[in-house]
């Protein structure tokens, strides 16, 4: 990347990710509305919401560990921004940047961790229940997620570099497809979408993890969720669907396709209990992926690409 382009990248990337995120959260609301035979909000509605939250007063619980309570959303924002900057840079320049696929798995955990700490610091019993659920959710989807990435690593011949992985399309095989579908469900849980909105659970925990947050701090959480809406599908596209090849429009199409898939799952399922979610991820997804890994190893061994 040449120097002016590089400077342009650094200027554009952070506002760009945020804007993309807001657009994605508009897509979520619009498609949900269409599914439910409503009209849906205008394009700028997510922005209006954030602006409105910024003007509200910030309430801090007296009992809270206030430093952690205030710092958690900032750390979460930093984590998700780093994650999406890394992915965009890799997508644009097609060279390794900041980290490989293992680093990406760990960076992906930062926003969830920040959410857990922030809600734990807020000293509310509802939030404590949310903390517990969010942590268990992280534990449960981490196992199939790792297995899915192991399938990718096998398929790409021990490749760790995300840019090199994006040159191949592991999803064009039985095992890769299986891994992709399970990873999609993990992303669903990571985003806190129904059926895995167990930690927020508006109807039973009253937003659980986010219960005590308000004003600008809540706005930051909403921003984090918006940025995740782009960053996580982008990660799936990079790892499973061959990145932004052959051109930009195909890449954006894949991105929006994944997003719409996630929204459709969100709108057609009821919420599951936490123990059901754990069982689902550990046993059913685990078994499916163990089969996928065996298929992938056999495929590698016999030189059959489509297995």
């Amino acid at each position, binding site marked *: 990347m040449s120097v002016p382009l590089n400077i342009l990248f650094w200027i554009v990337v952070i506002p760009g990710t945020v804007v993309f995120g807001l657009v994605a959260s508009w897509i979520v609301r619009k498609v949900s509305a269409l599914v439910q035979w409503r009209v849906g909000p205008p394009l700028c509605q997510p922005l209006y919401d954030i602006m409105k939250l910024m003007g509200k007063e910030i309430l801090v619980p007296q009992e809270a560990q206030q430093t952690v309570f205030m710092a958690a959303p900032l750390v979460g924002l930093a984590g998700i921004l780093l994650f999406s900057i890394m992915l965009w840079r890799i997508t644009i320049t097609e060279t390794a940047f900041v980290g490989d696929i293992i680093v990406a798995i760990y960076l992906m955990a930062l926003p969830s961790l920040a959410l857990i700490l922030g809600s734990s610091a807020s000293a509310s019993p509802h939030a404590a229940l949310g903390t517990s659920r969010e942590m268990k959710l992280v534990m449960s989807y981490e196992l199939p997620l790792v297995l899915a990435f192991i399938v990718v690593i096998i398929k790409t011949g021990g490749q760790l570099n995300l840019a090199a992985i994006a040159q191949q399309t592991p999803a064009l095989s039985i095992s890769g497809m299986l891994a992709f579908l399970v990873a999609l469900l993990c992303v669903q849980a990571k985003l806190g979408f129904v059926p895995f909105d167990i930690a927020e659970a508006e109807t039973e925990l009253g937003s659980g993890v986010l219960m005590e947050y308000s004003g600008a701090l809540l706005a*930051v959480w909403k921003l984090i969720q918006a940025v995740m809406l782009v960053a996580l599908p982008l990660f799936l596209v990079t790892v499973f669907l061959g990145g932004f090849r052959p051109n930009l429009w195909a890449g954006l199409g894949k991105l929006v396709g994944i997003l719409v898939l996630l929204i459709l799952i969100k709108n057609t399922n009821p919420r599951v209990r936490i123990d059901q979610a754990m069982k689902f991820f550990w046993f059913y997804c685990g078994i499916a992926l163990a089969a996928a890994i065996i298929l992938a190893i056999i495929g590698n061994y016999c030189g059959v690409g489509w297995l």
Partner: protein
Amino acid sequence: MDKTLLIPLTYLSLVFLPLLAGFVLLFLPNRVKIKSFGRSLTLTISGLTFVLAILIFVLGQCKSTRSVIPVDWSVLQIEIGNLKLDLLLSAKPLGAFILMFAMGFGLLITLYSLKSIGPMAKRVNEYYGAILLTIGGSAGILLSNHLLFLLIFWEIVTVSLYLLITTGGKGSNFAATKSFAMIGASDAAFLLGIMMVWVHSGTLVISDISLAATSTLPIIAFLLLMTAAITKAGALPLHTWLPASGEYAPVSVMALLPAAIDKLLRIYLLVIVVRGMFELNSGALSVILAVIGAATIIIAAMTAIVQHNIKKLLAYSAISQVGYMVLGIATGTAVGLAGAVFHMLNNAICKCCLFLSAGSVEQATGTADMDKLGGLGRKMPLTFAAFFIAAMSVSGIPPFNGFVSKWMVYQGIIQMGTEQTGSAAKLWPVWLLAAVFGSALTLAYSVKIIHSVFLSRLPSNFGDVKEVSLPMRVPVLVLASLCVLFGVFYRQVLEWFIYPALNIEPGTAIFGTWDSILATSLILIGIALGLVILLVGLLARKVREVPTWTCGEVQTNEQMIIPGTHFYKTVSSMGGLKQLYAGQEKGHFDLYNQGGRVGLALTEFLRWLHSGVLPMYLTWVTLGLLVILFVVCKIW
């Protein structure tokens, strides 16, 4: 003074000064109370040994002085028949680097002990004496180049561990006995292994030994030495002494031995056994190592998430992290080995910090039971910060140091899978899964402690809890800042300490990408951006403190605490896992208990035989005579 004599003298004083002082303190009756004599002596000597250890390390690094240092310096030689005993002292690169950190831990723990008055207050001379013995013994292990003397120093450390655990008061005698029995048994295996090595190679000088592990005898010797190393490191299945002592021993002891120095020494032994003394060609042996590593990670972490006592939980966590080191060594790749040694160092730092801050909490509140704690983050912000950093580091959150070493171990596993052909290599997805999933479990129990000790709500009886005193805060903060520094500047740490110690060419091992400095600066920029958003919000409307929202109910009950101890009941009541957890709780998987049961059955049988009834004895004697007659005279 002759320059060539200076360095051997450093070695000698490093080993024998603490040992001598330790013995003096140990035999000084506890009633003899010379004002803070034990403390100041221990502090002086541990400081001195730390300085000497740095000196040795730096001298070993400089090319100009390296030629002056004799390779081996023989202190005394005894010959018994063809067994040559030779106290060879030498600073190998790996030994010198570990020595420096071990002595550093010794100094920090001594500093911490100055103010942490536990139940050992009555036996203060014994406590400090045993700490000095540990320091001297571990210096001896790391410097000696002769297996038999290594064993002697090893035993000194074992004995002082026993002494140190017993200073913990109620219940600690049981824990100390259990530890001593298990470690003692493994040391017997060590002795047997050493004898086999001697029979097979004819020498006990470590640097001269090179055995191909192909025939039966070297393989058995290897397994015996491995048993010794992993028992003391606390890997499965010989780990059960660690949680027992974790519960009852003083935290400073747990931080010094099982968390820090023990880890360093055992992994040191494992590395010299696997890399130096034996040439491992056998796939079966690396499968055994890898299975032990993976099982240790998962089982210990699964046990840790259901614990209620912080110290016991941390002990299980210490066991779990050993799995990464064993797994890294089992990969047999440069990056895996470097990752294992780096993880050993990182984990010693984090775990030491975790134990010490847990000790501070215990001292401030009088309990280590997570059900009774909560909300201490507001009362003890510095301890909380240190604990938080160390816990994140242990869970492998970037950019802290635990992440880097785990990441290196993962690379080792992947490299093994793609480049090697053995049966361990074919199973690489299993090892990788265990390692990465284990790290999610680590995060789970870290969150559990952080929630139920530092965040959540403050129980009303802890309203006047104060931050602990300075000598207890300093070691914890030093260790926490090391966690950050070693994580962000991991390349420098690897190039200064790890690569030279393992003879790895810098830049050849790691093949993944992790630009820690760039990532850290991007995270800082992100936080700054968030701060700007927050400031805008603060300018628009001001912050208001409100009571916790209780859904509109007027609540006078100020408790409303949801402790973290029940977070993972969902896991432990899951079908299939439930029975395992119940069995673990009853000690069914504890080799010590099972061994005890076998021993009891045996003595029960002997007691039954020795009933003291004369006709019974006469019957046995007659029967025995008959058997002898039949066998010897071949009457049939």
